């Protein structure tokens, strides 16, 4: 027996409103690895992210998902978070009246325990993260995602990731809506949180841009709810140059 996979997805089938979207996905991420899933709009990328996090609107009709050997499908979203899954949302939700600082403290306490939210380590990680992501101190007293610009929302997702220290960070289109500087900042944040740890990341993206900054170990191409091709980082560049059509025809 080898090392236990960080994430192991076997034959995952998923439906929403009785329409099957994922038709049997297989994916294995080992500790320390960064994987990318690429695909066009509507290929099932965001569905994959939401199903891993446990969105109640998606029905899993077949297959298994294990995180560190634990059955994720048995868990509700908050239990998955506490087990180490983190999702950086494509469209983070606003919660008017809930202050960022308060939310961060409570979330760290919920995911990592009360002690983690009290210690000096929390404060220093927060300070360092905000510096790295170029977020002002006044940010802490704003309301969660309320009136945030697109870039602020994405940087706030990364800040949460840094504080929650997940086993597996899923980044759903974190690069969309960001300019070049924003992408670099966010990429550095991902690198800092994952590289050199036993955690892993699953970067879900449309474009190659973010992958030029965060070099993935593996790239998977998702078309119509199936992973049709996997390879190294060079696959991302190839998709950038040649588009998705050739993969599609290869697959057929």
């Amino acid at each position, binding site marked *: 027996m080898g090392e236990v996979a960080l994430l192991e997805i076997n034959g995952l089938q998923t439906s929403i409103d009785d329409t099957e979207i994922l038709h049997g996905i297989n994916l294995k991420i080992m500790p320390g690895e960064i994987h990318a899933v690429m695909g066009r709009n509507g290929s099932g990328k965001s569905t994959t992210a939401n199903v891993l996090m446990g969105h*109640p609107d998606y029905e899993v009709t077949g297959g298994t998902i294990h995180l560190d050997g634990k059955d994720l499908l048995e868990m509700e979203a908050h239990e998955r978070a506490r087990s180490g899954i983190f*999702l950086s949302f494509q469209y983070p939700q606003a919660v008017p*009246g809930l202050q960022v600082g308060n939310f961060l403290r409570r979330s760290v306490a919920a*995911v990592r325990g009360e002690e983690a939210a009290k210690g000096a380590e929390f404060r220093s990680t927060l300070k360092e993260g905000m510096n790295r992501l170029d977020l002002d101190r006044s940010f802490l007293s704003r309301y969660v995602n309320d009136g945030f610009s697109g870039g602020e929302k994405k940087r706030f997702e990364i800040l949460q990731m840094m504080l929650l220290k997940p086993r597996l960070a899923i980044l759903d289109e974190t690069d969309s809506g960001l300019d070049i500087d924003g992408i670099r900042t966010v990429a550095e944040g991902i690198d800092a949180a994952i590289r050199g740890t036993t955690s892993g990341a699953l970067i879900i993206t449309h474009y190659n841009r973010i992958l030029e900054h965060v070099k993935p170990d593996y790239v998977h191409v998702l078309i119509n709810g199936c992973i049709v091709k996997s390879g190294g980082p060079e696959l991302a560049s190839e998709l950038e140059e040649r588009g998705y059509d050739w993969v599609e025809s290869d697959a057929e």
Partner: protein
Amino acid sequence: MTDEARSAVGDYKVGWHDPENATIRFDFGLSEQVVRDISALKNEPEWMTEIRVKAFHHFENRPMPTWGNMHLLEEIDFDKVCYYLRSSDATEKNWDDVPEDIRNTFDRLGIPEAEQKWLSGVTAQYESEAVYHSIREDLEEQGVIFLDMDSGLREYEGIVKEYFGSVVPYTDNKFSALNTAVWSGGSFIYVPSGVHVEMPVQAYFRINAKNMGQFERTLIIADEGSSIHYVEGCTAPTYSTDSLHSAVVELIALPGAHIRYSTVQNWSNNVYNLVTKRGVAYDNATIEWVDGNIGSKLTMKYPAVILKGEGAHAEVISVAYSGEGQHQDAGAKIHHLASNTTSKILSKSISKDGGRGSYRGMVTVSPKAENCKVNVVCDALLLDEDSRSDTYPTMEVGNSGARCEHEASVSKVSDDQLFYLMSRGHTEEEALALIVNGFFEPFTRELPMEYAVELNQLMALEMEGSIG
């Protein structure tokens, strides 16, 4: 506990009751004799007895309001209410002297602890009378008067006679008439010119007996350039029969004075809460009502400010939570009688499990009042399809120079919002509580920290078991 009682109590954590050890208890029902007996028992001056009797006749002849929740109002049986009940023969200055059961109840409610930590003075009313009363010595030395209303009448009859009923006459409405007829307890406060009471003073009202009527009467006078923050809390046991709470509060803010009056109302769901609260603000004075309504069966309460002097300012910030079987009909009334007066109303309501929240507001600007500013915002949050929110705003603006703004919104908690918070490790109930507390945040930030924490905890309890 019977099943009925258990289901009625639910998550209400303060619904216990003590054994009834009344030293004086009136029979159910109201008559002129009951009114006279209350007055005689208190050895009141003749003029007060007369006001009470007049108010009683007005109450008898005055029809029920024809608005609000008429159906629930008609269910009140005035013959099944106890109008006076005394459980302790004295108002003590030391908690150790308060009868043990009663002291334990206030201990469990955390009142003596709060008093030590962050209050300037406390009055604790149990049924009809204050059982404990105390004020910090340094405030007494500065001439601040803080008494229960009965002692106020005895010791400062002149001031009470001048102001009693001057802001809320008994003819104002059926329930102000009822209160004037049978009032007992409440607070009497006078803050001398220029004195700033830094820490809040608190009154806590507890109903213990079944079918109890509590009718406290509060009068606060802030003399020129003074300031005070008054906080009140209230709770009651949960019974299957109804109780009635009908208070009258009168505030007088003389020129340049500042009165803030904060309430966290957490009556059990068998209490009718029909309260008249009104203040008069003279030149450059400010009156603020910070009003949280969490409990009760039916609340009808519209804190009011009469802006009588130039440059006066009024704020009414209120939140209401309506759960199963509850109707919070709350709002605000502001009358701009003088020039350069400003007012702000912020109303937030949450309805859940078929609960009903209503905002009922009235703002008037008199033709003579130049350059007034009015800002009204009311937001409602519905947690499910069965719940209801209504807004009844009225603005009568008689002066074309007034600047009036009104905004209203109704929103629902979305699944995506809940999922986002759950993905950060919060259970569905915790997620809902975070959304609800966030919605109330503009209110809670106005409360003293200890109260804000209490309110958030209350809301978290209300959210428990709310996810099907």
